[in-house]
């Protein structure tokens, strides 16, 4: 019963939060900014932003103080490739909005318009410290060579939750791309080149095209327009590729069209780490991938992350499982077990995604002026037995409740109190 009262209190406090001033005191703060690691530090949050961080921060009298003594304080986790708000139950098609079926090119498709900020998946993951996410289109069914555009969202609000849109374009080469293009990697590259050339041609001849004085294009007007920021090098193109030679092909394509390339997947990226570093191309990877699950991942290894980082490649971790995006801390911990420095692993789930998407002026570290996405952890955030104890997103204090904690508490009640009445009469938290 005590638990239930605490939950009610937490929820009430969260609802009254908002623009208030909060001081997190006494914790070991990993700012990931110029202040570095601060022992017994204070993080001051005002108006949704970090107002100050350091060992000697003056705390306003009206600030709510949260004692983080003995705890670890870090920036929130940023998932660089998720389906938050566009997939609820993966196998229930009515709850999926992450892609258009059977269209090899859908550049104009933008998931942002479909995002449901009230998704059950969001509280499940944000109470474990996930505060920001790129919501990306994902291949379902036959998949896409160009799937469309993704948006960066804030997991703490149902209003103004879209932080940047469009934030990136997503494409697939390698085995899946080849299949979509009719059975060869060469065909997929050819078709992608054609579309990019069309986008350039369209930009140069828009009037002529409108007057029907220009050749036909491989994709629609909307797709060509959507591709403009990509061919101008303003919006990143995230390409799913795994085999070393496929990564090299993507690098050549990026050079030819001056694209801002991001490699996703990258199981064999370590084999071409020097080339990726030289081209300043970052990699979104799952550090747990170590099996030759496909012929394009024969070189998969648990040391991928460590080797890329050592070569100077900017890396971020994406597990590809939005329901359990929270488990990225475990993935990062394993990367440490296989050679990645601890701080680099923490950055790979916080600061680096922000950098990769050009959002590090606002997100990714605890620096004055940045959005206050802050997590207080019971211990080492990468450890399996550690929990997020408090989570703030843009300064909002997140209620530490999800559908899963409610289910748990309902059946714990049944387990302990013998359940005189059916469990459905147990209401763990007042709605």
């Amino acid at each position, binding site marked *: 019963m005590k*638990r239930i009262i605490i939950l009610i209190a937490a929820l009430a406090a969260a609802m009254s939060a908002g623009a208030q001033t909060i001081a997190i005191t006494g914790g070991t703060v990993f700012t990931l900014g110029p202040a570095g690691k601060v022992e017994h530090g204070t993080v001051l949050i005002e108006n949704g932003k970090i107002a100050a961080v350091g060992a000697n921060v003056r705390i306003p009298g009206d600030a709510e103080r949260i004692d983080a003594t003995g705890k670890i304080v870090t920036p929130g986790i940023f998932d660089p490739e998720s389906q938050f708000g566009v997939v*609820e*139950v*993966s*196998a*229930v098609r009515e709850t999926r909005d992450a892609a258009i079926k059977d269209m090899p090119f859908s550049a104009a498709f933008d998931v942002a318009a479909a995002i449901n900020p009230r998704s*059950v*998946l969001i509280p499940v993951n944000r109470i474990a410290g996930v505060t920001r996410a790129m919501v990306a289109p994902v291949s379902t069914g036959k998949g896409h060579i160009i799937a469309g555009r993704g948006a960066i969202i804030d997991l703490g609000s149902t209003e103004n939750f879209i932080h940047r849109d469009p934030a990136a374009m997503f494409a697939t080469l390698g085995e899946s791309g080849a299949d979509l293009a009719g059975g060869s990697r060469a065909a997929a590259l050819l078709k992608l080149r054609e579309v990019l050339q069309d986008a350039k041609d369209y930009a140069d001849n828009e009037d002529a095209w409108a007057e029907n004085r220009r050749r036909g294009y491989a994709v629609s007007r909307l797709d060509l327009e959507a591709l403009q920021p990509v061919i101008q090098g303003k919006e990143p193109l995230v390409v799913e590729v795994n085999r070393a030679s496929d990564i090299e092909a993507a690098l050549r394509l990026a050079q030819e069209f001056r694209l801002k390339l991001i490699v996703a997947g990258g199981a*064999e990226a*370590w*084999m071409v780490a020097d080339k990726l570093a030289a081209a300043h191309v970052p990699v979104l990877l799952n550090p*747990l*991938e*170590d*099996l*030759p*699950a*496909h*012929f394009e991942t*024969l*070189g*998969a*290894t*648990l*040391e991928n992350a460590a*080797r890329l980082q050592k070569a100077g490649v900017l890396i971020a971790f994406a597990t590809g499982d939005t*329901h*359990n995006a*929270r*488990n990225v801390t*475990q993935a990062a*911990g*394993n990367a*440490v*077990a296989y050679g990645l420095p601890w701080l680099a692993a923490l950055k790979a789930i916080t600061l680096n995604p922000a950098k990769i998407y050009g959002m590090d002026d606002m997100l990714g570290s605890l620096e004055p002026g940045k959005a206050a996405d802050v997590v207080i952890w019971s211990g080492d955030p*990468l*450890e*399996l*037995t*550690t*929990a997020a104890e408090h989570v703030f997103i843009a300064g909002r204090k997140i209620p530490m409740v999800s559908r*899963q*904690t409610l*289910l*748990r508490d309902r*059946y*714990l009640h*049944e*387990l302990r109190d013998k359940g005189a009445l059916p*469990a459905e009469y147990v209401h763990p938290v007042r709605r």
Partner: protein
Amino acid sequence: MKYRPLLSLAPAIIFCAGLGTAHAAEPAVSEFPPDPFPSTYRPLPSQPTLIEHATIYTGTGARIDDGAVLLRDGKVAAIGKRVAAPKDAVVIDARGKFVTPGLIDVHSHLGVYPSPAVDATANGNEMTNPNTAQVRSENSVWPEDPGFNTARAGGVTTLAILPGSGNLIGGRTVVLKNVPATTVQAMKFPGAPYGLKMACGENPMRVYGNRGQFPSTLMGDVAGYRQAFADAQAYDRAWKAWEAKVKAKGRAAAGAPPARDLKLETLAEVLDGRINVQMHCYRSDEMKTMLDVSKEFGFKIAAFHHAVEAYKIPKLLAKSGTCAAMWADWWGFKMEAWDGIRANIAMVDAAGACAMIHSDDENGIQRLNQEVAKAWAAGRRAGIDVSKAHAVMWMTLNPAKDLGLADQIGSLEKGKNADVVIWSGDPFSVYTRADKVFVDGAVVYDRQNQKRQAVSDFKLGSFIKGSAL
């Protein structure tokens, strides 16, 4: 089972069990002939080994600080605070390290859905009939699956390989020792009972319903199991009647035995208690229904696998003596997995039921200790205060019970098989790795010694320097 490709319907090669013995002189005829694919497993060469000064989680729920365990002739010869080193023993100073029994995964598809995952290797689901009780996963296992090696590097010494969950009755499971081999028979755990893989819920009704076939609903699923066992009862009666006749009047007077039917033979073995059912089942209501079905026909469900809603009926599971094999936190990938919670294992355990982790995954099997650590921590946050030593049972003794092998494996007790893992640190830490893995007293994996790191044939030639195992 999460998402196995459902498109690979290439005809599976089914070895007919009867052919192998057809030419033998007057084979003994019985309802249940001997195993047509007998184990040829032999332990790897070993030396007596004393591991001392380790923190030992015994697998029985106990913890021994600064403890020692002696492995000799493939068995645990002694365990305690101090064990004298025999003259011929290799002595390992495990100061700062942890020791557990070898980990056991009761739900793996290694070998039947191996890496690389291509159409030719997708041999885990004989989805041509909702009841394929006649098939055996061992006939699909590819021993070169590199996943066996990566699982071994994660401390897994015993694993059950199951057919997939596309059918109501998927076929026989097989228990393997995780040793490198060129044949599945050389991996087979000698004398381990077979299991029968069955599946509740959405998978069978989706596979067959989408084809406009039976079953397409949950009620169809249940009718399907019941009819299968009703048929098996008739088969069992016919054989038992014939065997009684042989006993009373002799072989000649008894006439021809009933025709063998491999499907009904397997189900009759289940009815006779020789095979336990391993049942893929997510929802609490479906688990209860299956307990009723098992009662109706008098067979035993050893464990519900996946059991995402086991926390809703833990007392029922405890009362019926049915184990639940669970993930730490998988949820939401389909409707029947919608109610998954992280405290599931701890809550089932707290009610006194037999709870365990399982992987169903070639990646998860490499980190069963980490999955247990998450489940343990979730339990603690829910106020379920059990020790780590107790939670170690979720990956050792409890899965051994499910497989009917708790007299041989699952804990470090004198006389049991010397399946042991030496961990670089606390196995509940994300930074810990298995340093040495022993099966029957022999080192089958050594992180410090490349000569004891098996590499699959598949990785030779296509082996890329720097990608492990």
